[in-house]
């Protein structure tokens, strides 16, 4: 099958490659770019393990063709680690509040939570639960994920306040 040229910005770096028109974004990220944080859990958009951030929106990369997002700015969980290699706020709070167990849903969870907190920096518990309902977890029962996101919001707001 003929291939097309694709150019993306992923985690702040410009990347390019060749892909078939039918190549899914999740496979392009995982197989071509070796970015294996986003996972494949269902291939039907239900579980959210493949969630990435595309141009400021949470997107399920298992049902998106890479051709559809040519030129886009993409962030995966790998891009949420601090520049010095330390854990970002959400990553740290997921660890602090035991918001993960097997870790398979975690990259999608954290990437979605990152966007949720941009959309709503002060979410209530209900808003977190609603905003995270596109991401499934089989291990944690969500209670500690909700706690981790709530704590992240507090910490990010405190950091913002201190910076102002």
């Amino acid at each position: 099958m003929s291939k097309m040229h694709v150019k993306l910005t992923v985690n702040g770096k410009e990347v390019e490659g060749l892909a078939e028109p039918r190549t899914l974004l999740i496979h392009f990220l995982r197989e071509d770019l070796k970015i294996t944080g986003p996972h494949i859990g269902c291939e039907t958009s239900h579980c959210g393990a493949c969630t990435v951030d595309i141009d400021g929106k949470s997107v399920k990369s298992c049902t998106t063709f890479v051709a559809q997002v040519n030129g886009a700015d993409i962030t995966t969980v790998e891009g949420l680690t601090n520049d010095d290699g330390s854990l970002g706020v959400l990553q740290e709070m997921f660890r602090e509040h035991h918001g993960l167990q097997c870790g398979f849903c975690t990259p999608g969870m954290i990437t979605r939570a990152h966007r949720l907190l941009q959309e709503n920096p002060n979410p209530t518990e209900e808003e977190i639960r609603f905003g995270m309902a596109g991401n499934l977890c089989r291990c944690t029962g969500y209670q500690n994920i909700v706690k981790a996101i709530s704590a992240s919001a507090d910490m990010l707001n405190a950091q913002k306040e201190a910076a102002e």
Partner: protein
Amino acid sequence: MNDQTLTPEERAANLKGMGCARKRVEDVRFTQGKGNYVDDIKLDGMLFGDFVRSPYAHARVVSVNKEAALAVPGVVAVLTAEDLAPLGLHWMPTLAGDKQMVLADGKVLFQGQEVAYVVAEDRYIAADAVELVEVEYEELPVITDPFEALKSDVVLREDLEGQTEGAHGPRKHHNHIFTWEQGDKDATEAVLAEADVVAEEMVYYHRTHPCPLETCGCVASMDKVTGKLTLYGTFQAPHAIRTVVSLISGLAEHNIRVISPDIGGGFGNKVGAYAGYVCSVVASIVTGKPVKWVEDRMENLMSTAFARDYWMQGKIAATKDGKITGLWCHTTADHGGFDACADPTKFPAGFMNICTGSYDIPTAYLAVDGVYTNKAPGGVAYRCSFRVTEAAYFIERMIEVLAIKLNMDAAELRRINFIKADQFPYQSALGWEYDSGDYHTAWDKALKAVDYDGLRAEQAQRVEDFKAGKTRKLLGIGLTHFTEIVGAGPVKNCDILGLGMFDSCEIRIHPTGSAIARLGTISQGQGHATTFAQIIASEIGLPADDITLEEGDTDTAPYGLGTYGSRSTPVAGAATAMAARKIRAKAQMIAAYLLEVHDDDVEWDVDRFAVKGAPERFKTMKEIAFAAYNQAIPGLEPGLEAVSYYDPPNMTYPFGAYICVMEIDVDTGEWEVRKFYALDDCGTRINPMIIDGQVHGGVTEALAIAMGQEIAYDEMGNVKTGTLMDFFLPTAWETPNYITDYTVTPSPHHPIGAKGVGESPNVGGVPCFSNAVHDAFRPFGLVQSHMPHDHWRIWKIANGLGMHG
């Protein structure tokens, strides 16, 4: 820091040992997307495998034409049963003493069964080629009902025709697998005949699926130069897989290295051996290249191991004041097309004979009949020890049914029948010796915590309001007191494929006082790297942060039977403590030598040996470790390491008291969990943070199972719930917050008194949610209704009780 300035408590705290809510070491990788799951593994020249699967539940395979598929550029091979037959690999043994087709050998027995295996250069080409394999089928009559199967003339397993003896005794019919009996039938029937009261009910625990977020998969890599096969995969029991691969492939076991990398949840789904593993190994041997196979979600739900599907007919006898005198159960177990249950060999229905539960029932009888149908094989312990969820659901429903018959409060009925604390160790009528428990204390604590009497008063008011037309919502109070049986198990009666169910730990102390430990188990999210290091820290006084823990590589880890059935802490956790104690015993001799006193004149003090009566004269474990490597100590070998293979003397018996408060809308069938209180007693608590996490997750899986999750078939044997659109996994939106609590009744036979916890919340949670639904409708006449209690089925209950006017 001068060690002498710290109190023993401060020194203990620095170790982050048992009892500490230590943060998980795994999370630094996982939160950054740096886990290493099977689909993350990439090897040079790797090929991809994909299956052609049967669209029919029962059919003859007339022909398979590979030509069009093989003509696709990039397709390397298409394997069928004919190709595997010369190797003897077209069938494989199951864990239950049966055998199973690897690829369809003349017929298929369930929808989604593997028919051909396509190997191609990438996964897209493989998927294209799967579509081009032409299979001609001839449909056969389909049986999806186990009761019908036992009456039908249709022979499902033609390969077994004429065999009247199965792996577990006589077969009564061509679709019958085994009968398993426990307890005293005659005595139980006599008790039932003479009882004041007998309650009888059919309790169905529907078919469901563990559905871990990561599906099953593997990468097989045969190195033709060294003759060594490396098999990476989602294996909950990597060592057992190595032995099985060796036995069925003929490869010498030392030439097989099995590696379980990070596993994205297991819940029992990843215990068994699947066709994908066998085909990938064969394909790698044939092509000389690594071959990856990762199933998709539909394949996972349709073809890999299901759970439950038990029809449990029950009778429970009692005196008129509620003292239970006998329990009778006959279970019809739907095993699907092959008996691939994952149970210890001598237990074809697992530990279903724990079905007397938390109650002192003097006489009991259990019979289980296993049956073939046109459904997927399996019968795994989905987040439970073998068939314990079924047993707990059965007894906890029967108690409720009896309470209705006696017109008694179900909490009080439980209380008067609990095994008393002074009866432990308790010998059950169905053959188990419960190690320890204090059920009354747990029960009273739970009832008090939720203000049980207040809830009952509120419920009574709600019923009045409903009858007066003031509300359309009912209040259900779900009760459960469960007893688990985990930690399989003693080698004298527990084995899988002849492999005794011991487990193991090897610890090596490095000269500078840090350590590495390796176990025969494998974490799938339980946090072993965190908790097992805590056990070692407490036992030998080195900080948990200085102890690396490894599992899952059969070339480096000691042999063990893996992680399922909540066995890691009861068995491998015990091995860990025992190995650590061997190290401490040697350390004591080294310390005595260094301190120039007799071995018996030093005593252990948190992280050091000190001279008795002279605590200022001591050698820390760190100093001892260095000495073990740099001093010639008379009578002792250099180095400091130990290995323990632990054969548990008994199972452990965790228990718990769960209470659920549920609001139910009579007109829509919608439910909302207002409160869920979970008290768990798992004996000694290693890491309370991880225990709470396990309980949250396990209760959520119970919520799913009780309230909507099922593998449903239509009469043609089509799977109706093959995607996450139809198969219910709760989101954060439906899932409530949980209140967790605990009591501590250590196991008397476990070295650190721990019992295991991962599966208790699923075992206790399912009856608790189901009982809440039943309890809401009890004032209106409901006795029994089958799970899952989705909105439609709840609406049907209300409608059937005439509540819609």
